[in-house]
């Protein structure tokens, strides 16, 4: 029997939870059909999380894409179908890959990250494309562009160093009407690996606290900079990401297992910590940096 999992009309870090709630009671080996026919929009987090979801299933999941040509075409340009066709059993219309000019809102199409060289490639590509958009359109300081690439490097390295599997990264800009009314640039990094809790548990001689779960592991890693490595230099990557996000009034969200921790800026009303969510293997990171509004 195949269970149909309906993708919400707008797929982002919040509405992904609706999708995972539908998936939670379905056994890992049971066939699912991920139905995105009525989806009109997806954030880079939503698209990379769909690929992660496909990787997490014991039986290959089926997928039907958006019926709206505009949406399907955007997902194609964002690089989604290139990898979805490898991971899902595709049903229905699959938009053809076009050789026309790249989508300007897609600063980095969905890109696999498995090894250190991939991180170099991601950083090179973002530097060549991001500068003009981040400085001229989002009014970010040129130095912020450099730090943006540093941030991207660090979050991608988390996959290489901790996930024990490959993952995905995507960077896009879009207008965030719902909460902010401004343009934002968003980094999404998702993997279906071992997640923060198991990564920290693998540290030799580590003593686990009485309250040890996905939320506790996220607090340790994201807030306190704890790493599975004893090396004193470890844990600086996420600390640097936190500083960058704080300085530019951005938002950092990290989901792993059944918990999600967020550094919430004043423009957002998210909860800093969400627990007892429906499970998703691995780690999913989203960084949102808003357009700078010139001071009056």
């Amino acid at each position, binding site marked *: 029997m195949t269970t149909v999992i309906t993708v919400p009309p707008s797929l982002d870090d919040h509405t992904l939870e609706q999708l995972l709630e539908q998936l939670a009671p379905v056994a890992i080996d049971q066939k699912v059909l991920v139905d995105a026919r009525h989806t009109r929009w997806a954030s880079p987090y939503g698209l990379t999380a769909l690929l992660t979801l496909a990787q997490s299933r014991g039986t290959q999941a089926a997928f039907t894409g958006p019926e709206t040509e505009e949406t399907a075409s955007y997902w194609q340009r964002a690089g989604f179908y290139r990898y979805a066709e490898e991971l899902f059993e595709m049903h229905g219309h699959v938009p053809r890959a076009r050789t026309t000019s790249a989508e300007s809102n897609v600063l980095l199409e969905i890109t696999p990250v498995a090894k*250190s*060289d991939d*991180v*170099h490639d991601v*950083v*090179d590509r973002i*530097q060549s494309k991001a500068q003009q958009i981040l400085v001229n359109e989002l009014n970010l300081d040129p*130095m912020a562009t*450099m*730090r943006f*690439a*540093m941030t991207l*490097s*660090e979050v991608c*390295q988390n996959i*290489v*160093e901790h996930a024990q599997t490959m993952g995905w990264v995507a960077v896009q800009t879009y207008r965030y009407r719902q909460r902010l009314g401004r343009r934002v640039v968003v980094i999404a990094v998702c993997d279906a690996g071992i997640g923060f809790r198991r990564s920290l548990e693998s540290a030799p001689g580590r003593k686990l606290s009485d309250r040890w779960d996905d939320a506790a592991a996220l607090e340790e890693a994201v807030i306190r900079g704890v790493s599975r490595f004893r090396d*004193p*230099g*470890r844990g*600086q*990557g996420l*600390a*640097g990401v936190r*500083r960058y996000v704080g300085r530019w009034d951005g938002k950092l969200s990290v989901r792993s297992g059944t918990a999600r921790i967020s550094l919430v800026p004043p423009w957002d009303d998210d909860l800093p910590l969400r627990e007892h969510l429906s499970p998703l293997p691995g780690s999913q990171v989203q960084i949102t940096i808003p357009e700078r509004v010139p001071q009056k």
Partner: protein
Amino acid sequence: MIYHISVSSVLRKTVCDLYTNLVTRPTGVAVRQAIEAALAELPEPNVTVIDFAHVKMLDFSCADEVVGKLLDFYQNAAAQPQRYFLIRGVHDGHLEAIEAVLERYNLAVIVEEEGGALRLVGTLEDGARRAWQVVNAHGHCGPLDIERALGAPAGSATRVLDHLSARRLVMRRDDGFVSLPQSV
């Protein structure tokens, strides 16, 4: 003699000749090991400029390997060879990563700015920092010079200068303490 190591050249020779960004920990490990191998060939004591010119970006992981671990070995480990470092060719983006690792390891290092002026970055208590500024301004000092310049009590400067010397921020010679550029 001041020795010079171009990090950009080391990166291209040891990791990939197309790379201009110093990112990822494996890259940092490879570059640090190549720098350590080059340092092992040099006589001691010596001053080595670690030059970041032409490195577009330095992330925290690489800064940890190339700056943090390298300096930690020579500044904090007991009985290490007398190697002194100047950092050159850094921009604000590099410095953000470098300062973060210096703080983490409780280290300080001297940065040569574009015009040649020297600046101390990292973690150092105020008294030692002021003493370093005096040595740097004069080029060569003894404890009495420091006490006079800072209005410090007699006998207090020797300990501070010893501390700066142990942290490889000034060089001790038979006739006093010298700033690194003056040491050669």
